[in-house]
């Protein structure tokens, strides 16, 4: 159980941290010219595609798309080469995207547009007799901060790390009391000469230790396996991780006392975890959500936690940047923490 989370993170991160590539591409080349071959070669070189097949008919295209065998189809019309070399020619390329998988399709389109742009520039250079350096200056220069190498892992693994901590702690905490209750050993626990506070602390300690240990393990792993840096202060990260852990622990304990069985506890954790997931901005940015949801996001601890993780790992942010999030976590932690303490103690008594 200890290493399950780490293993999972490793596998998931490995599978998801590669750029989209090897998308099956189908080509119908009705021109069979030097120009059309150039297009095909350029498409191959992007690395986004893997040539699935060269076909001769539209039926084959229909079949492949229906079966979901390809993500995109390029149709090079006859006369393509002609239209490029003659002045006043209008070169056209037809693209069919498999919309049934929108994420690869968007990426495929991006790659195709890139290739078209490049080749288009070459055509212009020829037609105008310019030098390629001249045209280069017409493209805005693009800099990507915090993730210069555009490593996919930088996008996904910090978020996965943050979420793993939440799920691990929530799950173990939620099982803490619901397990005892279900097995009927809760009464035994309560007749022992411990105060309810001592019982709570006793139950929390293993969760805290496992959670924190897991976090350190996962952090080390993504650092070494995926080269994710820790640009900010490691100490700050660990301290905040501990703080966040306590917040989720509180939530988990409340779940564990309101559930009568572990099954219930688990389903509640799943639901709550999903709500949190939605607000962390892992997949979709919170800015795009309706205003109401954006405001709610601020009271979800995981939202601030993810920002902190990304900030410290990738941006090198310090407390000067992160203080609003830390403050929010602290306040939420106090509220959730005291509420859960009161509630749990009352439930136990």
């Amino acid at each position, binding site marked *: 159980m200890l290493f399950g989370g780490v293993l999972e993170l490793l596998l998931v991160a490995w599978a998801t941290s590669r750029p989209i590539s090897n998308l099956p591409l189908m080509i119908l080349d009705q021109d069979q010219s030097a120009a059309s071959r150039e297009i095909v070669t350029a498409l191959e070189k992007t690395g986004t595609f893997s040539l699935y097949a060269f076909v001769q008919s539209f039926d084959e295209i229909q079949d492949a798309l229906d079966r979901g065998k390809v993500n995109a189809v390029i149709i090079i019309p006859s006369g393509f080469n002609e239209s490029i070399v003659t002045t006043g020619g209008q070169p056209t390329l037809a693209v069919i995207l498999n919309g049934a998988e*929108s994420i690869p399709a968007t990426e495929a389109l991006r790659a195709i547009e890139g290739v078209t742009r490049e080749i288009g520039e070459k055509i212009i250079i020829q037609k105008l007799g310019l030098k390629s350096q001249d045209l280069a200056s017409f493209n805005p220069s693009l800099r990507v901060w915090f993730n210069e190498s555009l490593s996919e892992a930088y996008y996904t693994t910090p978020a996965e790390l943050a979420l793993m901590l939440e799920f691990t702690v929530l799950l173990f905490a939620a099982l803490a009391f619901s397990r005892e209750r279900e097995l009927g050993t809760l009464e035994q626990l309560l007749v022992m000469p411990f105060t309810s506070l001592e019982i709570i602390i006793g139950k929390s300690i293993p969760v805290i230790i496992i959670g924190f240990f897991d976090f350190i393990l996962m952090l080390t792993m993504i650092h070494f396996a995926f080269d994710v840096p820790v640009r900010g202060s490691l100490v700050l990260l660990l301290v905040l991780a501990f703080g966040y852990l306590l917040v989720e622990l509180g939530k988990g304990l409340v779940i564990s006392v309101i559930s009568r069985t572990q099954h219930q506890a688990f389903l509640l954790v799943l639901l709550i975890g999903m709500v949190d997931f939605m607000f962390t901005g892992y997949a979709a940015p919170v*800015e795009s959500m309706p205003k109401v949801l954006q405001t709610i996001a601020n009271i979800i601890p995981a939202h601030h936690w993810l920002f902190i993780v990304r900030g410290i790992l990738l941006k090198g942010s310090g407390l000067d940047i992160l203080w609003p999030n830390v403050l929010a976590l602290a306040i939420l932690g106090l509220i959730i923490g005291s509420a859960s303490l009161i509630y749990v103690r009352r439930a136990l008594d």
Partner: protein
Amino acid sequence: MSFRHLWAVTKKEINHILRDSYTLFLVLFTPTLLLLFMAYALTVDLKNIPIAVVDYDRSQISRAFVHQITAGQDLDLFAHVESMDEIEHLLMKGEIKAAVIISPKFSQDLFSLQGVPLQVIIDGTEPASGGFAVDHIGLRAEEFINDVLKEQFERRGVSLASLQPIDLRIRTWYNPSLKPRNDLIPGLISMVLGMPALSVALTMAHEREHGTMEQLMSTPIGRTELLLGKIFPYLLVGLTNVILIPALAMVWFKVPFNGSFPLFFFLSAIFLFAILSMGMIIGVFMRTQAAALALSFLLIFFPGFFLTGIFFPIASMPEIMRMESLVLPGTHYAVITRGIFLTGIGMETLWPYAIMLFGLGIVFTGIAVLFFRKKLG
């Protein structure tokens, strides 16, 4: 195999579930709630992405440029700032996702065809918004620059239809607007319908944990009957959801359904058979519910989310993960679901996946029965 025995186990399991109405509610509606939350989380249309601009040129042209870029709902001009320091600060705070820096010679260079001194900086920590910002800034910038350049070229006697001579005619099949919603939601549906498998793992481990397994063993009920009897109620739950959830998706999210529903129902039943038996295996191996939980998250939930090709294309995964995704029922079911919802294909195309699912179900059930005997024999 005696059906009387099978029915006895099923009845007991159903009673067990019904007595605990709280859990029943959760088991029945978790898939629906999950779908709702996840659909909202993952299919938000990107818009209002905040960006900042530093305009060192301050000419009419540069102002028009900024205006063009921020027109519409996609990008929000968060601030017009004066320096790189402010940009850096805003990026660090995450208040902007991208910044555009217009150099002082912008209009000058543009008119004299020297180039376009423009810099775009994007926040590389968030995959979606950064890329979106770049795409949109790039698109708008290109349009703008094209217009200006065309005019300038023409003044010099060079007629240029466009700076991008190759005309791309793009058609998107099955999902013309390429809204992620339309294909992600069927994908989510396929994932969410498999949730009862987790409950199956739990209920098996439950008996072991409470020590009631031995009692069951001493009755004349056979191993296979016990296993199948335990699955059956969850199969029913699953099938109910097979009807409810697509209905919800169509009504609430306006997802199209272009195929045949009876076919979908039939194939879903086979899927449930496969994935519930996966849950069975976990339940057979684990002695406590906590362990069954952890393992089912590990083997069913997370792979179901990440490795089934719903969000991340399988073609892009490393070889090993691709092979692993093949043994996940979710992978094949995702193809089936997408196919029926979006593409409208039928059995003649989907039969290989149906066979695959059935085969997986048989294998998993076989493994579960085999190890069940060994563990408790």
